[in-house]
């Protein structure tokens, strides 16, 4: 993590943000501060209000209430908005660029909107699309299309980059390629705000994340802090063959050595544990004593997804 010098004002500040669509409240009083130079992730299931929030910050959707400052400027529809736009890079979740324009032509088109645009060559090099420069947008793979979208966002050398689910639907290799592009942009002291529902992406790229649900921030911190808040590094999940009611087991499970929290959802029991080599033998002997047979048992390192489950009782990706 690069610590921003204290003199730099925050890149984004918003307080009490509210946005309603008819009866649906998409954003319900959101507070957020993104420091200059950090990579900040908005994490949450679909429908949590991530896209609405980011589009309000981008000045594309007006908020119903609340204060928004982006690079110390409040969107007001005036001439100053254009000057601010020159300093922002934006990739929207669903943009289809013109089908029959080549990579090169598309970048040149976007470059024409900015007085300080970088050359087509240098953007192509950053997103590694040099070989595809003459290919039409319609002929690109999903990953290449997404890198072109990011190239269009980077063409003006922005100070602040907004990415709305930049890697959704991409294969792992394309995803890593994009991560490299984003990391490279950050390393020059720039700020990134991204939304994602991939935990790995947030843990890998973000200095801090805000976990969103129902239009609110329900947890905020560095990925490490949030995971640490679970009180354990490991998660053990198991199901029982006889499908007995597990409620009666909960006190005993909680009493096992090294176990933090216990949670049962749809017959699956999840424990957090500090040390697997202590907890697992104790768990199996407990189940044996009580005459239960395991149907399945898995363990994994605690992730942001487990943080979301711990707070809401739901999984992010299931939604």
């Amino acid at each position, binding site marked *: 993590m690069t610590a921003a010098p204290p003199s730099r004002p925050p890149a984004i500040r918003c307080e009490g943000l509210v946005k309603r669509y008819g009866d649906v409240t998409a954003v319900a009083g959101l507070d957020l501060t993104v420091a200059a130079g950090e990579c900040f992730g908005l994490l949450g299931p679909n429908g949590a209000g991530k896209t609405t929030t980011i589009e309000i910050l981008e000045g594309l959707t007006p908020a119903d209430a609340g204060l928004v400052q982006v690079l110390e400027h409040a969107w007001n529809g005036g001439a100053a908005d254009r000057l601010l736009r020159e300093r*922002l890079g934006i990739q929207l979740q669903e943009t289809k660029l013109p089908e*029959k324009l080549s990579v090169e032509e598309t970048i040149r088109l976007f470059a024409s909107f*900015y007085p300080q645009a970088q050359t087509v060559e240098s953007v192509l090099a950053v997103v590694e699309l040099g070989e595809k420069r003459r290919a039409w947008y319609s002929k690109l793979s999903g990953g290449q299309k997404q890198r072109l979208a990011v190239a269009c966002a980077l063409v003006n050398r922005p100070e602040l980059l907004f990415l709305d689910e930049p890697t959704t639907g991409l294969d792992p290799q394309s995803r890593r390629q994009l991560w490299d592009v984003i990391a490279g942009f950050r390393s020059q002291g720039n700020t990134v705000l991204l939304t994602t529902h991939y935990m790995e992406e947030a843990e890998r790229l973000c200095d801090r994340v805000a976990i969103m649900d129902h239009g609110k921030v329900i947890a905020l911190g560095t990925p490490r802090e949030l995971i640490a808040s679970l009180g354990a590094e490991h998660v053990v999940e198991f199901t029982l063959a006889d499908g007995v009611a597990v409620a009666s087991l909960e006190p005993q499970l909680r009493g096992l050595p090294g176990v933090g929290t216990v949670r049962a959802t749809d017959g699956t029991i999840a424990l957090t544990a500090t040390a697997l080599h202590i907890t697992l033998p104790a768990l199996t002997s407990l189940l044996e004593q009580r005459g239960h047979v395991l149907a399945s048992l898995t363990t994994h390192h605690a992730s942001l997804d487990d943080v979301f489950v711990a707070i809401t009782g739901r999984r992010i990706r299931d939604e």
Partner: protein
Amino acid sequence: MSNRPLVQMTLAWIRGFYREPEAIFWVFGFPIVLAFALGIAFKNRGPGEMRVGVLRGAEDSAIARTLDATPALAAGVLDSATARTQLRTGRIALLVLPGSPIVYRYDSTRTESRLARLEVDDALQRAGGRTDIAVVHDDRVTEPGSRYIDFLIPGLLGMNLMGSGLWGVGFSVVQARTKGLLKRFLATPMRKSEYLLSYVVSRLLFLVLEVIALVGFAYWVFDVGVHGTMMALGICTILGSFSFAGIGLLVASRAKTIEAVSGLMNLVMLPMWILSGTFFSYARFPESMQPFVRALPLTALNDSLRGVMIDGASLAGVAASLGIVAVWGAVCFLVAVKIFRWR
């Protein structure tokens, strides 16, 4: 210069258009095919020969020979069944029944048949020894641009400018809106006015190609000339093209789907296809409709194009029509800018 947003956006629309093969056909191929087909179908038959028949009977071949010697007539001897069929289907304009008296059988409601009646009678009477009393002399006049094809080509040009202006602009605006491209552009410092203007400007290049294709084709195949100056023709077409781009922008200003904009386009164009005198003169519509018909932009454009191409009118001569064209374009563009749906 080439890094100006207006230039780059214009180029983007032009590229998007010419990289779509169907679009090329509808803009360039279709009007030429139409001009060719209609030009052939309505080709003037010059002095033209009218076919007449002589029923088999006494002196039939002598009569047929006399008639055939007349430049305007082509005659043949027919038996009664064939003669009846050919007369009914219009293959022959008139049937001569030899005898005394000679009988002319023809449909008196057909202009061609009545002409044939005069020619046949004239030829037979002279052959029978009639002499003309007054001395006459024919002085044939060929009015330039009086053929149907001369009338048709400026109309097709106007219709084509309308179609390509409306489709070219309307389609790509709505596509940009439905695909989120418009929103993406709004996230840049692009000026909205330049965005809208880029569509109007992109029409210019196509305009040049359309005009060259259709006017060139008409000159080469049908010998349709431009009697006014090329400058006047150029200004008429530029104004027409800008005007229909403005109308296209208005039609597309609110539509959210391709289906919706297609419906609107047809709604706008259909009355003009029928009323604006592309294929036949709008003078055929009743007097009460004339003010409405004349106020349509395509009518005004067709009038100015015909003025320049057929009558060799100067720009001043077609200024009134051009004024209507310009007002349509300017008003539609301004309204479109006001009510345009950006999200």
